[in-house]
């Protein structure tokens, strides 16, 4: 039986100057690279495939299988291959890649080198969101150190393998976490998703074969190579192998990063986090960021693996567990997420561009108590006209909090109409609110920051 928590990626985060090459090397850093370079690239690919590692960016596609989609090298038309790391972590609630890259950027860099070798890429990019200055500093320094130590550049470790790696800072656009929008952005364009096919494996960056993987996925590769595919596959569940970082935020006593085998439950995680805030009860939560349908108390024992969460009607996503207690108005929460999707819609597809705008209009009047009961059906109809009708998943994600909140909290929406306003006091949900249970009765007038 595997332990409840299994720090692998997080294991060195507390080390003295963990971000530096000497600290990373001292705990065996870049040994896995040495080992991988002694294997044929195909064997490294097989190892990752056999480990059962599935994409940690939300979709959960098997990483090794994704690598296998690259077309075989064509001597007639030799196109370069690229590895692009998606470190554009922006999904509301998701906060695992940023601390990983801040504390141990070399874990990611080593993962990039091994993965690039496995897919025979000679150029790789880390696309990191621009709004995280210190993380970018740490990545830049790690890449510089890796070049100086011969882990990057020409003839790595005397193997004859060459790799160039560039750290590329984005400029503020949630949509660039979508892999084809990321590619357009990396090509110096507006970050708008591309129609697929062709898939990036065939025609990605500069229309060349490209693999795009989430930062945590790539950072998991050195440990897999070092410890073996069976070691990784032996943790987690049969179809959701290995460990992952679970990020708890919101109304728990000890929010933070908990690295555990896939398949743990929120009940267990909340217990580890010291419980929900004193004097309150869990009301709703996101299993994997705001784009994954909300869960409630009744889902505390859902196993947090890809299959378990899906069977219960949501998605594991990025294991971004945002915990909201009974002080929080679900309509306010959903409205704010919807404003986010409206702001971040890239504008390419009409259902998403126009639809998210209309969703905000309707939710705003519901939250203010100005709406009508029919507005709930109108919202569901609007969601129905957005879901599945755009190039990418942004519009789909925008509908998740709305449809799930109406499913579980229809009465709370109606209470806004009955009371002519929001029945919750936002002061009671803040981090500095006194933890006392009082009947909520105040009506508030809250100025939206989006005015």
């Amino acid at each position: 039986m595997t332990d409840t928590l299994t720090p692998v990626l997080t294991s060195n985060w507390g080390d003295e100057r963990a971000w530096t090459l000497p600290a990373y090397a001292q705990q065996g850093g870049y040994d896995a690279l040495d080992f991988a370079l002694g294997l044929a690239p195909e064997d490294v690919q097989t190892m990752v495939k056999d480990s059962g590692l599935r994409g940690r960016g939300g979709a959960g596609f098997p990483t090794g299988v994704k690598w296998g989609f690259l077309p075989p090298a064509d001597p007639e038309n030799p196109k370069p291959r690229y590895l692009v790391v998606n470190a554009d972590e922006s999904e509301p609630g998701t906060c695992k890649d940023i601390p990983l890259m801040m504390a141990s950027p070399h874990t990611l860099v080593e993962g990039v080198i091994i993965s690039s070798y496995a897919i025979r890429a000679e150029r790789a990019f880390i696309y990191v969101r621009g709004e995280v200055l210190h993380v970018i500093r740490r990545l830049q320094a790690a890449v510089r150190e890796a070049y100086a130590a011969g882990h990057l550049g020409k003839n790595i470790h005397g193997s004859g393998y060459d790799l160039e790696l560039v750290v590329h800072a984005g400029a503020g656009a949630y949509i660039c976490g979508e892999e084809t929008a990321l590619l357009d952005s990396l090509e110096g364009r507006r970050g708008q998703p591309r129609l697929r096919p062709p898939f990036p494996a065939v025609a990605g960056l500069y229309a060349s074969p490209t693999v795009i993987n989430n930062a945590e996925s790539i950072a998991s590769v050195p440990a897999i190579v070092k410890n073996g595919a069976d070691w990784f596959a032996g943790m987690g569940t049969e179809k959701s192998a290995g460990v992952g970082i679970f990020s708890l935020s919101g109304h728990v006593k000890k929010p933070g990063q908990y690295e555990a085998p896939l398949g743990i439950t929120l009940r267990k995680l909340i217990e580890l986090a010291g419980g929900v805030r004193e004097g309150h009860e869990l009301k709703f939560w996101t299993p994997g960021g705001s784009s994954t349908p909300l869960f409630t108390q009744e889902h505390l024992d859902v196993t947090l693996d890809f299959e378990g969460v899906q069977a219960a009607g949501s998605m594991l996503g990025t294991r971004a567990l945002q915990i909201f207690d009974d002080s929080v108005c679900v309509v306010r929460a959903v409205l704010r997420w919807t404003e986010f999707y409206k702001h971040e819609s890239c504008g390419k597809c009409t259902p998403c561009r126009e639809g998210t705008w209309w969703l905000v209009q309707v939710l705003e009047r519901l939250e203010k108590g100005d709406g009508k009961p029919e507005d709930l059906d109108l919202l569901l109809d609007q969601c129905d006209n957005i879901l599945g009708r755009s190039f990418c998943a942004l519009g789909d994600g925008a509908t998740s909090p709305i449809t799930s909140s109406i499913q579980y909290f229809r009465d709370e929406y109606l209470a806004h109409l009955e009371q002519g306003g929001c029945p919750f006091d936002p002061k009671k949900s803040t981090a500095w609110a006194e933890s006392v249970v009082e009947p909520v009765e105040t009506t508030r007038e809250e100025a939206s920051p989006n005015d």
Partner: protein
Amino acid sequence: MTLAAETFDELREIAARYPQARSGLLPMLHLVQSVEGRVTPEGIQACADVLGLTPAEVSGVATFYTMYKRHPVGTHHVGVCTNTLCAVMGGDEIFACLREKLEVGNDETTADGAITLEHIECNAACDYAPVVMVNWEFFDNQTPESASQLVDDLREGREVVASRGARITSWREAERVLAGFEDGLVDEGPAAGPESLVGLELARERGWAAPVHAHGSADVTEEMPEAVEEADTRRAESETIAEEASDD
């Protein structure tokens, strides 16, 4: 006024990092902001010249991304996260407090040019909510009082250090780092904040760990028999502790 020759050199240097020069456009625009304090028409022209694009093509890109500003930004950029989780945890109150204190609206700059205030989207630090960013450095677990003190310190020019990051320089200097030019501050600040370490510390406390690998690049049983023995002992002890704990 056109940009200095050395800025043109740096723009070309950025473009040269990529197999296709246009890939450099995002970092090039960050560099323009660090030099000009915003994306100016001259900066757009310079990027267009270096990349062989039209100014309209460069503008089309610059207007897509929220970090690029068409109006002058203050010495410091203060971003308050008001996405759902931070908003609920107090981000709305912090933003309202700063708006009143600084007498500015969203994405506006104080009269003295010291601070541009903006409400921002999720910045990937939800376990530290509510979060405030100064020049894209993390200020964790903020309150209206701490945020108010923070902007006072920034306006007075007092030294301010990020919760997980370096001494605060300026928005322009931060933009230069985003363009790919290091500023030597990488070794300031911790590896991780307390919240990032809660799971790790709990695991250590209870003796929990990922299993010792069966096989792979290094065969532990051959190289370090003592370590394995020790790990096994520790594991057994920790299992006992865990069993006891779960009996409670």
